């Protein structure tokens, strides 16, 4: 009888002790924010373009983390981005949906400075503060910071912004895939 009592008391005591330990651990080692969304956000290209249907990369990352959004909605990330997200989440990669925005070559915005009237509408639209200018002063794009989201195109009242391929310098130039010419004999 006493053996049973000791065993029961021991088990109960252990349960209380371990439960208290777990309780403390959950408070002390509490993880702030959503680590999965952070990891997803780190893989997204941060163009903040909204082509996924969410107002920026972080909201899209949150939506993926909570299972509301699919992994194939980020055209700037491309197929490579889908593959990385699939690797992270342990799911199968899938192609972009039919009719949804498709990946395109990266571009950056360019302001035709002669046509700019200095209305500041594009500055308000730029999600990464990559446009420099002031009211009634000419605006210009900080090409290095431009993510190519094209959100500045629509607000421009004089249509003086276009998307152009990013400039290439010897430092950013990429050697081409080796091509061996066909020899006709």
């Amino acid at each position, binding site marked *: 009888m006493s053996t049973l009592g000791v065993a029961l008391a021991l088990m109960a005591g252990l349960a209380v002790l371990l439960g208290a330990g777990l309780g403390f651990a959950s408070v002390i080692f509490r993880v702030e924010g959503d680590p999965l969304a952070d990891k997803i*956000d780190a893989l*997204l*290209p*941060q*163009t*903040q373009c*909204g082509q996924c*249907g*969410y*107002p*920026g*990369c972080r*909201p899209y990352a949150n939506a993926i983390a909570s299972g509301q959004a699919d992994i194939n909605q980020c055209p700037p990330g491309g197929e490579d981005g889908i593959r990385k997200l699939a690797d992270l989440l342990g799911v199968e990669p899938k192609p972009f949906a039919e009719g949804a925005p498709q990946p395109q070559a990266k571009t950056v915005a360019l302001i035709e400075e002669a046509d700019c009237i200095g209305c500041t*509408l594009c500055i308000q*639209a730029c*999600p*990464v*503060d*990559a446009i420099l200018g002031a009211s009634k002063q000419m605006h210009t794009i900080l090409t*290095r*910071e431009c*993510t190519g989201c094209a959100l500045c*195109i*629509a*607000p*421009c009242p004089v*249509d003086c912004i276009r998307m152009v391929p990013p400039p*290439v*310098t*010897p430092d*950013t*130039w*990429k*050697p*081409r*895939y*080796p091509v*061996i*010419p*066909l*020899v006709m004999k």
Partner: protein
Amino acid sequence: MTSLFRFHGGVHPPEHKAESNATPIRPAPVPPLLHIALGQSVGNAAQPCVSVGDTVPAGACLGRAEGRISVAVHAPVAGVVRAIAPHPFAHPSGLSVPTLTLEPNGSTATVDPQPLAWQSADPRSVLAHLRDQGVVGLGGAVFPTHLKLGGTGLDTLVVNGAECEPYLTCDDRLMRERAQDIVTGILIAAGLTHARRILVGIEDNKPEALAAMQHAASGSGIDVVAIPTLYPSGGAKQLIRILTGIEVPAGTRSSDLGVQCFNVATLYTLAQALHQGLPVTRRIVTLTGAVAEPGNVEALIGSPIGWLLNTAHAGYCTEYGVIVGGPMMGFTLPDLNAGLTKACNGLIAKSPTLFPPRPPALPCIRCGDCARVCPAELQPMDLFWLAKARQFDRAQAQHLFDCIECGACSYVCPSQIPLVDYYRFAKGELWAADRDKKAADRARQRHLFREHRQARDKAEKAARFAAARPAAVPLASAGGSAEQPPTPTSSDAAKQAAIAAAMARAAAKTTPPSAASAAVEPPPIPSPDEAKRAAIAAAMARAAAKTAPPSAVPAAVEPPPIPSPDEAKRAAIAAAMARAAAKTAAAAVASPPESPTP
């Protein structure tokens, strides 16, 4: 006698050095125009300090160093600055970079040399002097020399006179003719770094240079060592291995292990800069290959490369191209108008007999020859497969970045696969991915800061408003004002919402149905400022109508676009939502007094 070590692999390509090493260095004539690229080193391009139209004396500073990794550039001769504009650069891409075009005017005006008594001067001022005299590594890497001389407590100073590349003999001739100046430079570098031991490595296929250097260095404590001829013994890591036995691990700099390596031509210019006070405005270049008079010339930096080759052979055949550098590691120059840079140690005119076109590549048979000759002890065939399959992260895991692109693998490949081209391609892709990642991190930061700034501005505005209101309406009690939104704000927001709704309705009328429905639907931004959002939606709708694709136009042209009940309803909903939002915004504006913002 120093005992020598061996590095892994290596090849013995035909040397072709006898063509150009028999004649003394001749001064190259002054070209009609000099194209001096402002970026003559690794890192930032120099910032021009002259303007177009200026007349400058020889040796004048044309561009100052910009940032930490940068050096100044100078005028090789007196002349007039004709342009500061993009010009083709001696680079495999053939792209243009900011270049200063100088037209020599035949004047003998020269800037006074500024020698520096380096023994007595502050080490920092010596390094600044080297930066301002444009001293860079002339072995081909063009790394600013003053950054390599910064650290002290060096164990071994390795001087690179190996010149293992076939065809090139510029270091050979320099050591034969100007050994004393090189030794002066070696002693300065050793003095600045407090090196305990100095080793000069020269391949044993240059007996005259070896003898000249040994003679010049006798009694100075410099050890001039003959090393066996084996390509690529002139690679910094390989030469350090041969002379000291130290193997520099991946991702480590040799300076971390107490060894620093300098090219002989660099040390020559170092001595010139400190003793004679002359900036680096010329370098020894080997002109060889399919030219009538192969040899070495002391050419002005910025001389057009095609023009310079013409001085060795009037009317040489340009149609086969020119190799900049050696045949193993160099590249074919896309544009012969590019100016000579500090990195160009040799110009080789191609011809079909000297450089027959590479036969078409055959499949890899995994013979392993490339792995046997690789001086970095990599598995070139695996890297080739991974680069071809675009599995760049796996190639990186297999130490792709330890590849020095020496070309030994391509040289021995029985299938004639241009292996190094694949590695360059893979490295380019990896660098681009790294740049994209950094850009994304920057964009994330900027976006977060923008959101923070907008929230802060709004809070400040609300606080200002709350502070100003009691003065304007002194009679209103605090409780009453919180419940009853102030009239001006609500009317203002209502007016704005009405305008937005009207604009949205107008947009719906003039837009093809599909575009309108897409545009009117408010974007799901969880910002409380709904009135503004309605305005943006309206603006977007207008823009969409403006830029509606041509295919959508016929749809809009046929029957007059009577606002379909569906769209009208939607616009009304949007307007109502905007009005409701404006009301909540007004309430939000009214509430802050309870929690004052800093």
